[in-house]
């Protein structure tokens, strides 16, 4: 019986025999810290939505490491709680479009013909559509949606927009890699050996077409978090009072002159995650070019 890691290893060959270079390992260490915080952080800090109007906008102290916000909520607790929101959202906002894009890209690339034309025209259409309009469209719904499966309150409509838009890049990446891999003799050998089309796609084409996409997917998590923060900053994202880095920056910006850390702390959190993911993506990329 092959281990799960072995199976993953055969699906993401060069990428998961994770020979990350030094900067990649550094990025992985930072990401590891974020993930740890996302999983256990919430249990170590106090309630991130508990208001204390007497102690509004308090400065950093032993009690409130990063002070309190305009409603007297503990900023450090909110920052930690937001890590879970943003990370979970970022990964899902990568995985869901990745899944959709892989299937559509694989179908387009392997079958070609009409399926290819239809899927790629759809991709063009999606790409030419102003995304911000979609976010405006779902903003109202976001305020009233409950948690859904892995998604927190208000996240479902936003995720739907990410899924509708995000698959396009993955479909294009996978399709072009499949067009390359399809011409390899081992695909003909598999076809000649009488293997079924799904088996050829899943076991012979996709594992060779996916590695390039993995690099993009890693970086894409950071982009998704940045997008979520941006639309939350615009007030179109995660509804109050749920902690989210972009929304926190929005909340804090009017106090920038005095309580600058209300903006800088979530800003650093976002930047740190983005840098960590970029380092990993870059480290993988260099490794795969070898």
């Amino acid at each position, binding site marked *: 019986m092959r281990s799960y890691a072995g199976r993953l290893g*055969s*699906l993401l*060959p060069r990428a998961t025999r994770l020979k990350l270079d030094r900067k990649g390992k550094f990025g992985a260490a930072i990401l590891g810290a974020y993930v740890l915080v996302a999983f256990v952080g919430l249990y170590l800090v106090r309630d991130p939505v508990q208001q204390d109007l007497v102690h509004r906008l308090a400065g950093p102290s032993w009690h409130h490491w990063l002070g309190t916000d305009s409603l007297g909520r503990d900023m450090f607790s909110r920052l930690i709680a937001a890590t879970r929101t943003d990370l979970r959202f970022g990964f899902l906002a990568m995985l869901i479009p990745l899944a959709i894009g892989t299937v559509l890209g694989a179908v387009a690339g392997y079958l*070609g013909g009409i399926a290819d034309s239809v899927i790629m025209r759809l991709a063009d259409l999606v790409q030419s559509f102003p995304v911000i309009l979609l976010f405006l469209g779902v903003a109202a719904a976001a305020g009233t949606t409950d948690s859904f499966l892995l998604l927190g309150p208000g996240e479902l409509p936003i995720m739907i927009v990410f899924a509708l838009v995000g698959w396009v890049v993955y479909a294009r990446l996978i399709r072009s890699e499949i067009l390359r891999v*399809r*011409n*390899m*003799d*081992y695909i*003909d*050998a*598999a*076809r*000649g*050996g*009488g*293997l*079924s089309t799904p*088996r050829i796609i899943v*076991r*012979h084409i996709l*594992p*060779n077409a996916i590695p390039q996409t993995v690099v993009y997917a890693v970086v894409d998590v950071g982009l998704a978090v940045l997008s979520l923060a941006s639309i939350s900053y615009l007030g179109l994202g995660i509804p109050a009072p749920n902690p989210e880095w972009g929304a926190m920056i929005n909340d804090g910006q009017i106090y920038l002159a005095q309580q600058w850390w209300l903006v800088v702390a979530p800003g650093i959190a976002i930047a740190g995650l983005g840098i960590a993911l970029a380092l990993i993506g870059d480290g993988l990329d260099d490794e795969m070019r070898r």
Partner: protein
Amino acid sequence: MSGDTALEVRGLQVSVGSGHAVKGVSLGVRAGECLGIVGESGSGKSLTLRAVADVLPRGVTRAAGDVVVHGRSAMVFQEPMTTLNPTMRVGDFIAEGPRSRGVPKREARRRAVELLAEVGVPDPAVRARAWPHQLSGGLRQRVMIAAALAVEPSVLLCDEPTTALDTTVQAQLLALIDRLRAERGMAVVFVSHNLAVVSRVAQRVMVMYAGRVVEEGPTQEVLRRPRHPYTQALIETIPRRGVAAGQLTTIQGAPPDPSEEFTGCAFAPRCARAEDTCTSLRPPMLEAVPGHTAGCHFVAAPRAIAPSKEGV
């Protein structure tokens, strides 16, 4: 030694969009027999084989003709870098054939190790767990042959399987293919641009030019008494003892584009003895002696240009 017919191809035409790259090829191979196909690059050898294996590239179609394989065919390709799936251990790759036909995983794995042993891979159980990039070009081709054998083929199609390898390894692989043919009673079609290589494994050869067969016969007979001027020219390009490399003849001119259609003989523009009839009338395949045919108007009176011990 030769048994029943294992492969029959009649009137095969392969269209590449702009024209036909294979213009009516017929051939037959018996179980336990190796047919060699030679010809310059671009003469349609690979497309003929791919049409038989039903793995034509996209945009290329079989326009006419019948292919009858008695049993199964399996193909061995030229380029050892692209013939093995880089994301699969070689044992798993070999096991794909049996597994897709419902053989349980363990059984298929065991079979893969046996096949590696059969094709002369040392330490087969260890090598089965290797990745393709860990193997030399020669070993990769042995693995590819094992993967082809895994589908229990009655016909093994080899497309220049030794061209990318150095001569020692090439000789070993030719010996391997010859042994497998004899032991398994398999029909083999062996394609190469190199007549010398083909003559080491094939009992019969077929010479192709511009998508057509121009000569066919028993290997030794064709080598000693070539009937088509193109075959004669090919033989003169074979390095021989006592002939310095610089003295070797090369065939003047270039082969025609596959989409080009000729009313006469496609080789006429490059042929030293071409006459008016050659450009106006396509020569039919004529029998020189029983079992040896050539598509040249002058088959009956071949010009003796190939030095031969027995004379012509």
